[in-house]
């Protein structure tokens, strides 16, 4: 270990990290499959994409979009190879690294997922959701302080963007988990979950977590109400 460190000290400095790369809008032909994907028809989006891309001439954007069609169906084993193609393409498209991170995360490969999120942050340093992804991996490793830093950064980066309210909400919900497990401060944790639910009323997972904390705090009536509301939301958004 020591010898390896000493050897390492004599090695040349590591290459400079890549500079941030802007995420360009999707090229015109991809807007049609993108619209199908946005409208909940990833299957049609795939058909359109295959028609658009002759042979194996996948660009970073088209391969990314193909991966995203599977990602939308929670089929991460199918999505990953497409994100890999997108990441390996010459025309760098930063979101591919981010979604590759999520595919790896959901496939149970936290170390690879962390590397993918970190790669994305080199290309897009201000992406709050990549910080959020790394925070979840930190939580899995019980690295509470690191998780807290990442979640606070995720909140900071997204709080002024009206399109990222759900990102702020889920970061606050996970921050509550850190506060509960590290600080054992149930009151503050439930308050954070309440804030998350105010920001994103569909976040039923936060509601169930809050109900459990309220029970532990002895606020049974509130807990029951929260649980009933969360169940109703769950049935609506994830039947």
């Amino acid at each position, binding site marked *: *270990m*020591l010898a390896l*460190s*000493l050897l390492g*000290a*004599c090695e040349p400095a590591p290459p400079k990290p890549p500079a941030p790369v802007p995420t360009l809008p999707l090229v015109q032909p991809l807007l049609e499959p993108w619209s199908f994907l946005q409208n909940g028809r990833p299957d049609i989006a795939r058909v359109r994409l295959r028609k658009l891309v002759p042979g194996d001439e996948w660009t970073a954007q088209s391969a990314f979009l193909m991966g995203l069609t599977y990602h939308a*169906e*929670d*089929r*991460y*084993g*199918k999505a990953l*190879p497409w994100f890999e193609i997108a990441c390996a393409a010459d025309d760098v498209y930063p979101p591919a690294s981010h979604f590759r991170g999520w595919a790896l*995360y*959901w*496939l*149970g*490969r*936290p170390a690879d997922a962390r590397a993918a999120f970190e790669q994305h942050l080199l290309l897009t340093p201000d992406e709050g959701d990549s910080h959020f992804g790394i925070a979840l*991996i930190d*939580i*899995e*490793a*019980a690295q509470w302080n690191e998780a807290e830093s990442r979640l606070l950064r995720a909140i900071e980066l997204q709080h002024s963007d009206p399109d990222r309210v759900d990102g702020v909400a889920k970061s606050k919900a996970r921050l509550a988990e850190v506060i509960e*497990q590290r600080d054992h401060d149930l009151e503050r944790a439930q308050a954070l979950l309440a804030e998350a639910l105010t920001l994103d009323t569909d976040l*039923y*997972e936060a*509601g*169930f*977590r809050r109900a*459990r904390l309220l*029970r*532990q705090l002895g606020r049974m009536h509130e807990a029951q109400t929260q*649980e009933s509301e*969360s*169940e109703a939301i*769950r049935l609506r958004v994830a039947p």
Partner: protein
Amino acid sequence: MKRLRLIGALALLVLAVIVVYNNTRPQRKHRSLWTAFQSVGVDPFAFTTTCGGDRPVAIPEVSGIGLALLDIDGDGHLEVFIANGATLDAPEEGPGCRLFTAPPDITDITRRAGIDIHRWATSATPFDLEGDGDTDLYVTCIGANVLLRNDDGVFTDITNEAGVGDEGWATCAAPGDVNGDGWTDLYVVNYLHWDFDASLPKPSTFMGTDVLAGPRGLPPQQDRLYLNNGDGTFTDATDSSGLAALEPSYGLNAVITDFTGDGQQDILVANDTMANLLLTRAAGEAFTMHDIASDVGLSTNADGGAQATMGLAIGDVNGDGAPDVFSTNFSSDTNTLHVSNGSGFWSDRTQAYGLGLQSRPNLGWTTFFMDLDWDGDEDLFILNGHVYQQATMETMDSTYAQTPQRLDREGDRFMLKKSRSMWGETPAVHRVGVKGTLDLDHSGDFFLATASRNGPIELLRLRGLGNRSPGTYLLEDDRPGIGNREGHGAHLEFHHGTEVHHRWITTSSPFQGADPAQVHVCLDWPQGSPATCFVDWPDGQRTRHDIKPNQHVTVLRRSEGTLIPPLPTP
């Protein structure tokens, strides 16, 4: 010169990091030892199980085989019972259940023992029906369950007289004294209504692939509670206890012990895709039970998700003396660890203990806590394998054949153990496993028997280096008028020096399997130093016993503190 200074500074930094790391690591009582499961012969039982066809088209075909370890003749050596299935075209005429003596002299004693069950069996529950010291056997089936009374090693079918022939699809039965009268009751876990004569239901879709139907879309089935009358018969208390008022659910597993710490036995029921139940005794003179799982945090995972709970392992992960619950689940979900906070609540601590992400590709079945590396704390073992033969990482983010997982406890984490010399390096579809000290060769060694669908029964011995090994502890309540002699549901608390260990006798917790009523604990060395075992018996009474560490010991309730010495070596 500048470079040398840099190298020196780096060296100091590395040393400092090492020192800090060592000082902050949790101090362990003693070093972990190398151990691994190793096969006892190739196909030692020369027997292939049956559970439907090779290409399953209906959900009963993926339910899997049942296993039980039991001592049918009271000689201290366990036998292996195989609850064997059948096929869709002849569900009542399968190849039949089997009973084998354990190695070294493996013999099929099914016929000699009077066992003749050819119905599609799913699991078996050994227990003492009448408190006569013989181990009787309740075999659950898809169809009427069977109760076999043991008279000196020969079984008689007394299902009808006993009144326990529920005709549903039972996945298992949990034994325990739920009404506190001293006799072992049976909680029969039912899955769903299945009609072998009806045409197959329309296939379902899972992650874009057509798969066999169920459980969703098929009618769930009510569980049953049979209270033991103490005379070889039971009373069906499903209605009178209030259970019939609960929503029927897709039941897969159950364990009975005192979860709430009130001195009464509770029933934890694991359901498939539906919320789990924790049935506790309601206040009042009449015996009734109600579900409090949601109130105490055991019904779902932290996100409120009802999981496909299969295997259950009961242990004390956080050292507070209250039972924590680890459960195995479907792929693309995580296994779940519910940790008690000591005040009547359980919290999902799966991620904090490192048990979440690594489990997502796996579909888990049998699981158990056990001190596998003999360092004093309990590790985890999980048998995995998918139900859908179409499963690949590309199609279902999971594979059909999967490796078992051993997760060793290191500090506050469970770490996946990888060893080339470990059994289970080759992926397979193991569903059920039962464990115990078979004492098959008078070694006191720890064994694991596993069964896979339409595959062999494997027998593994835990081999280790070093002279340390766990002790095996059994209970015997030999007071007159007590049927639950083995102490199903009891809590054992071991004190040895500064160490305290907690164990529970929950034989039914492996999926569709039954462990013997034993607990295992590896107390600190030296072996000669005394230890104490406190037992919280199922009736709520607590007794104290002086024991010798790391031996094969039976704790007798009547003659408190008396030891049965290790079995004599022939």
